[in-house]
């Protein structure tokens, strides 16, 4: 105990050593450099260009803007560097029934007339047989997304044009590289190399020193494990047990395949349900990221690969297939859904894939990195001190909460389906659910009540969009909605619908907005193969 007092009595800088680059490593390095005193914390990152990072074209959540703002990044420049596009939602196709499409927006549905949440008003009109549109039509962000429109949310909180947030699609490899430049310019030390040996303190088992293939030895006080699935430190050395979630989320493979940019630039990610998993479509400025997340239990790798290539209508690179030209061979990734029981053990903290993996269905990977880094910075040991078990407990508690919330939300996409006769979908439809999810489902089915968390994901409107989109229909709605005169309700619904459409019509197209705002718009020549 006893804080280091400033001045000549100051402790030596606390040495943070990050193992692994990619988004996890460089987001961690940059955030620590930005938020903590460089005189108190020395940051070293070890990465090897020989070890590929997963870095698929990635989608994000609106929280990423808070992260970028914290670093002081210029938004237009960041978008240019990472070939980013805007994202205001995710379109899910064929998840409930083939042919169905719905959008999960970063935005509100309707308005809470009379203090009652909108879905109750909508359900009342539905049950009364009154004219009303699909719930989707009452979300500004949904309608904008369908129209491929984008603008920054209006600052006037009374305007319908303020009722959403946005995130980005970007090339994660370029984002990592961008943050790398940012961090190195500000004093983060990068070491090119691979860890081949890890030495622990005799007592307590904390990691003391890493040895690289080059023979170089690096000591540290806290080690951040960004080594990806291998989880070199937390899993490998500290022995954090693995909690497997394959029984809830059967997908354990992915093929990734970039194609040439074609057609209008969409301000949303698309996730299309398939026979043995789902395919993603992520629009970037210079190309489109595609992939097939699948379960090896329900399809073998060759069939999955072919299914992806066929679905894209994409032939080999440089070939003459009718669809958008592929820009590389499909690349295979293998993973296990689940997480490490504790993300922080001893003096090792796992961030990113080293701490766990949930498939990118709701673009949560980078969010988890951001949440972990933010919490770590708050709970970081002070110079001259060691990791405090009390703060490790708090870190792990927060980490648990984040993972479980996301898990429940992802499982919902799978279990609520009517794709009868397809083995994967039959399995997930009938599997036992996490209690927390079963409870939420029962409540929504009974009377359209939604979870309303104060911390973490997901927002109430997110749950609403996915529950409804996946075909869950409440039997009742909040009685207090009945206080509203029905004719007034009908009028309001019509007015809202019109107000949304009128305002969306006045928006710029996403493609045009990108060109004007950060215009590296036209298709870039296909460069690195990394998807």
């Amino acid at each position, binding site marked *: *105990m006893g804080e280091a007092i400033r001045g000549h009595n100051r402790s030596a800088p606390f040495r943070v050593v990050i193992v692994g680059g990619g988004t996890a490593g460089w987001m961690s390095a940059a955030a620590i450099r930005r*938020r903590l005193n460089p005189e108190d914390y020395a940051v070293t990152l070890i990465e090897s260009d020989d070890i590929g990072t997963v870095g698929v074209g990635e989608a994000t959540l609106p929280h990423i803007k808070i992260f970028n703002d914290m670093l002081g990044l210029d938004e237009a420049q960041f978008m240019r560097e990472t070939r980013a596009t805007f994202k205001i939602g995710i379109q899910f196709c064929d998840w409930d029934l083939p042919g169905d499409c719905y959008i999960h927006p970063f935005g509100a549905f309707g308005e809470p007339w009379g203090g009652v949440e909108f879905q109750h008003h909508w359900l009342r009109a539905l049950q009364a047989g009154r004219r009303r549109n699909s719930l989707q039509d009452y979300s500004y962000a949904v309608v904008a997304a369908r129209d491929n429109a984008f603008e920054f949310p209006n600052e006037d909180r009374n305007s319908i044009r303020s009722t959403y947030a946005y995130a980005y699609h970007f090339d994660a490899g370029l984002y990592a590289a961008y943050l790398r430049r940012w961090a190195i310019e500000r004093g983060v030390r990068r070491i090119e190399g691979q860890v081949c040996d890890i030495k622990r303190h005799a007592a307590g088992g904390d990691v003391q020193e890493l040895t690289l293939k080059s023979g170089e030895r690096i000591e540290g006080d806290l080690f951040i494990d960004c080594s990806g699935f291998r989880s070199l430190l937390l899993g490998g050395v500290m022995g954090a047990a693995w909690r497997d979630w394959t029984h809830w989320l059967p997908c354990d493979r992915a093929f990734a395949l970039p194609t040439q940019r074609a057609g209008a630039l969409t301000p949303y990610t698309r996730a299309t349900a398939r026979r043995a998993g789902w395919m993603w479509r992520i629009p970037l400025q210079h190309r489109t990221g595609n992939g097939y997340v699948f379960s090896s239990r329900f399809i073998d790798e060759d069939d999955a690969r072919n299914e992806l290539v066929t679905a894209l209508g994409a032939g080999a690179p440089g070939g003459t297939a009718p669809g958008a030209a592929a820009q590389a061979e499909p690349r295979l990734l293998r993973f296990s859904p689940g997480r490490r029981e504790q993300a922080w053990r001893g003096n090792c903290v796992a961030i990113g894939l080293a701490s766990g993996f949930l498939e990118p269905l709701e673009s949560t990977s980078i969010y988890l990195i951001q949440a972990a880094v933010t919490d770590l910075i708050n709970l970081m040991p002070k110079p001259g001190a060691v990791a405090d078990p009390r703060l490790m407990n*708090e870190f792990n508690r927060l980490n648990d909460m984040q993972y479980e919330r996301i898990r429940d939300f992802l499982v919902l996409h799978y279990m609520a389906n009517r794709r009868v006769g397809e083995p994967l979908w039959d399995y997930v439809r009938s599997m036992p659910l996490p209690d927390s999810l079963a*409870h939420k489902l029962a409540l929504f089915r009974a*009377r359209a009540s939604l979870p309303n968390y104060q911390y973490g994901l997901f927002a109430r409107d997110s749950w609403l969009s996915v529950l409804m989109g996946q075909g869950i229909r409440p039997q009742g709605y909040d*009685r207090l909605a009945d206080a509203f005169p029905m004719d007034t309700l009908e009028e309001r619904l019509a007015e809202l619908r019109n107000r949304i459409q009128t305002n969306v019509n006045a928006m710029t197209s996403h493609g045009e907005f990108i060109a004007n705002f950060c215009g590296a718009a036209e298709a870039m020549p296909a460069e690195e193969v990394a998807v």
Partner: protein
Amino acid sequence: MSANAPLSRVVVVGRDADLWLSVNALSGALTCVGVQVVAVELPTRLKASLVSATLPPLEAFHTKLGLKESTLLRVTAGSFSFGQNVVDLSGNVPNFFHAWGAYGAPIEGSAFFPCWLKARRLGLNRSFQHFCLTAIASQNGRMLLPDEATAALGRTDYGYHLHTMAYVAYLKSIAVSLGIRLYEAQHVGVERRDDGSISAVSIDGSVSLEGDLFVDASGEDAVLIGRSLGVASDDWRPHFKVDRVMSASAPAFTSIPPFAEIRTARAGWTALHPSQAATGVVHAFSSGLVNDVAALESATAACGVKLADASFHSVNPGVRAQIWEGNCVALGGSACVFDPIFDVEIHSLQLGLVHLLALFPVSARFTAERAEYNRIMRSYYERIRDFQCAFYALSPVEGNFWEKARGLSLPAALAHKIATFRARGEIAPMEDETFLPESWQAIFTGLGVVPDSWSPATDRIPSNRVDEEFRRILEFIKKKVLEQPTHDKYLESLCRPG
């Protein structure tokens, strides 16, 4: 009634604030959608000396019920309360103030508290509450009327001190004026169906009142959920030393303080709730250590005046194992009995009502609503319990009572919160909290807990910036407080009829 038919009749059985606040709230929300609310009033358990202290969210709740603040304060001879001043009568422990309002303001994107922690460690001679606008205003006998400038600094809030009997009478008069059907009863029994649900309540063995949903608002007696349905409570006594409370009355202050005062002494604590007509006194103690006579002596000494209308009752803190059982929902004291510290009873009732309305059943099939209600209410009540428990677990006050209180077991979530705060001055975020992070910071700090470290991001802020901001905040507080009307003057103008 078929399972799909909507509920049409709610029978509320109870007494005092639990009954009348429930009846008004339920009726106000549900009558216009075709649900009839019927009240069955049991004999009061109120003492004339009681002055209820309320929490800030009650104001908005009253507004929804159509209550006007000025009428309320006039009718109840009530006053404002901006928080609680905790004073140790032995003089060993510095006073501290738990305010309904923000402490300081964020500095360069960092929370205020770690900045203060660090400055304190480096020799700052200003306590946490010095930076709290509401604390300073109220301790100077002033109101805090928010405006744009105060909103820019942070949140300001308040509760009330209301003469309980008058408050209850006022609430009842509103129910009567709304035309709610009222019955009086000495005893209430239940008629049950084969499945265990209640089909009707019987009043004094004669009148039988049918209903779809039954609300037990009878306080600790829990005549429906406890006595009739036999639902036990989870015992919280392992966490609390207080098992007996004395209520009494003291004369009104000449100048009415706009805050409560909690005076700790060797054998327990004495709370003073000032109002316009009189001061409500609550003395909490352990019957195993001190008898009623000695308790009255301690309370008298703590108040420094003669006390009138002293009455005693036992306290058995605990939460009903199922707050909603079958078709019977417990609200207020029948749902959860709290330790008397921080006066959470009316707020607990409000929470129960808000969530019952949010989950009000659509039909007789309400398994999901009931499960959710039980889950969320238990969660809210446990977080309140933890805040109260912290007051005893961390108190440095000397005396047999406090020594024993410190030795009691801690609920796990509270143990984690305390550990996290001790380590880093961070308040571990949890869902379903009633008390905001600054309340936790205020009582932890006031009780003398000094964290081992502060958030390292705070060290990034140049110390001259921090000093500047501290100065700015203190000057703003000084200026703002001097602009405020005194509590007495404000009450006078507010309560003037017409």
